[in-house]
């Protein structure tokens, strides 16, 4: 059973009650019926029933009011109700006009009870559908309001662009941060603000900007394609990063300067002392070549050490830009081996080559890569005190696209955790501690990596270089 509220308006109370009886007998409905015998009473009841009224049955011929006006009043007060006019021949024209003006239907007197019932059932059905639709509309509105509130309240930038790239949504966070109200921004071109996503500057109305990381979502609804952009403020993050980098750079410069000072002071100390020895021997009349020459040699050697240090330091601290060209990896290694081989082999050192990267090209600055290989090979030879086996291998590109040069020695190995790639780290008497630092830098500048494995009797350095793209080979 469905429930229904019906208002019967008729100046004839008997007739009104009769109508009530007929309506109450409708199948499947539990009808609650109210009666008004004049316009004023009808208005009062309407005000009371408000949206709970389903159907009003109105006799147009009322003593105190024009029926049409009454129908309008009912619609105003009871927005969800439908009105059925009950009329005689005399007022038929008014009834037709009333239907044109929004009444649901009219029933001509005299009528069959069944005829009236059917009309009321149809009116009730329509009211039901309208009520349902209204409920859905309200539900949708609530849901949309909630979503809108989320978009508005979230402390992130939310922006939408229509198919022409014009701003269709500008949330509260955007208003607050940019100082530009939505009324000013809606409809403006907005593609420039978000680009294709990523970090973009968001200009502020008071000048300056924030750095915003945008993420775009394209909704390709054919009716209304739209792009949503979600942005996070990364200004502080970026500033922190820059500050950290600067601090790190300053710390690195400090470490480098301290290392450099140490490396300069040792030869300087030695040369100064030797010159004082020289002066003393001359003063004492011991100025024979035998007494002076060894001292002079030491001073010269210390000055050469200083010169070497300055050269190494410059190539480490102020590298010249790479001038790369496609080069066959094996050719490059072979050239270095030819240059360095005789020097290395004069000592008790055997040199072995296993070049297996035929047809592998790399984009390198040949001069600087030669420096890498020479430094690594000299290091290896010195580590073995010029006795042992030095093996140089090449391998063609692995799955990740990196070709490899391996330089292996049979020396005593590298102490665990030794910071071999740090500037000024050295275990050699006359080393500047910059050789491997330079190697590391050059390899990284080529987009490559350098690493090593070490144990007593076998140390191997791996220089990995990206294989040249085929297009760069012509």
């Amino acid at each position, binding site marked *: 059973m469905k429930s229904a509220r019906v208002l019967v308006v008729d100046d004839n109370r008997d007739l009104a009650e009769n109508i009530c009886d007929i309506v109450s007998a409708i199948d499947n409905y539990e009808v609650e019926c109210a009666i008004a015998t004049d316009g004023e009473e009808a208005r009062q009841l309407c005000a009371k029933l408000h949206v709970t009224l389903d159907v009003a049955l109105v006799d147009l011929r009322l003593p105190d009011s024009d029926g049409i006006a009454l129908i309008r009043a009912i619609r105003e007060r009871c927005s969800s109700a439908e009105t059925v006019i009950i009329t005689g021949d005399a007022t038929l024209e008014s009834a037709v006009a009333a239907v044109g003006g929004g009444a649901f239907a009219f029933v001509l007197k005299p009528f069959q009870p069944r005829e009236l019932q059917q009309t009321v059932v149809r009116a009730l059905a329509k009211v039901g559908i309208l009520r349902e639709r209204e409920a859905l509309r309200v539900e949708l509105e609530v849901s949309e309001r909630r979503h809108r509130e989320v978009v508005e309240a979230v402390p992130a930038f939310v922006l939408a662009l229509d198919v022409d790239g014009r701003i269709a949504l500008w949330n509260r966070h955007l208003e607050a941060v940019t100082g530009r109200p939505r009324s000013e921004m809606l409809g403006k071109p907005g593609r420039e603000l978000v680009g294709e996503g990523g970090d973009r500057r968001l200009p502020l109305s008071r000048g300056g900007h924030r750095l915003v990381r945008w993420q775009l979502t394209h909704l390709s609804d054919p009716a209304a394609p739209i792009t949503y952009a979600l942005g996070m403020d990364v200004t502080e993050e970026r500033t922190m990063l820059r500050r950290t980098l600067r601090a790190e750079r300053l710390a690195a410069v400090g470490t480098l300067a*301290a290392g450099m*000072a*140490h*490396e300069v*002071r*040792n030869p*300087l*100390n*030695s*040369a*100064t*002392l*030797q010159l*004082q*020895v020289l002066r*003393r021997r001359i003063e004492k009349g011991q100025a024979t070549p035998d007494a002076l020459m060894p001292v002079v040699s*030491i001073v010269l050697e210390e000055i050469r050490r200083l010169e070497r240090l300055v050269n190494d330091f410059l190539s480490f601290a102020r590298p010249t830009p790479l001038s790369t060209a496609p080069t066959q990896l094996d050719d490059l290694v072979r050239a270095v081996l030819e240059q360095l081989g005789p020097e290395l082999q004069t000592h008790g050192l055997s040199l072995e080559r296993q070049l297996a990267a035929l047809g592998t090209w790399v984009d390198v600055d040949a001069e600087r890569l030669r420096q890498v290989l020479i430094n690594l090979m000299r290091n290896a030879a010195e580590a073995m005190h010029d006795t042992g086996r030095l093996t140089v291998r090449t391998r063609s590109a692995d799955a990740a696209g990196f070709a490899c040069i391996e330089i292996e020695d049979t020396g005593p190995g590298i102490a665990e955790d030794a910071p071999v790639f740090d500037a000024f780290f050295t275990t050699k008497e006359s080393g500047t501690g910059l050789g491997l630092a330079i190697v590391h830098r050059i390899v990284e500048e080529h987009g490559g990596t350098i690493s090593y494995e070490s144990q007593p009797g076998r140390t191997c350095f791996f220089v990995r270089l990206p294989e040249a793209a085929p297009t760069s080979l012509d």
Partner: protein
Amino acid sequence: MHHPRSKRRVLVVDDEEPTRNALCELLEDEFVVLGRADAEGALQTLDGETPDVVVTDLTMPGLGGAELVRRLREQHPQVPVVVMSARARPATIPAGEVPFFAKPIDVTALRRLLRRLVVAPEIAT
């Protein structure tokens, strides 16, 4: 102003031979100078004959200069130590207690300090 008869004994510890020899030669007019290449050698010498003062480098293979200073102050507290280094004074070498010479060494200043260090105890007794 000095007593050539009773020359004071200075122990110089530095792993770089030319530097060590030069220091020895530049100090030998006033002192009897012994040169050692590392902390281990210096400690052995100290067990035999105690010098009047020790001058040591810090960065050396083996025990190293800082450890030598620590042991000297523990085992031979009466022997003054002078430290020289190409690096800044490390925290392990307390300022005010152990004189510190940055390389390159000012030999004149070192000589003056050594004179004071070896004469002062004599005045005190």
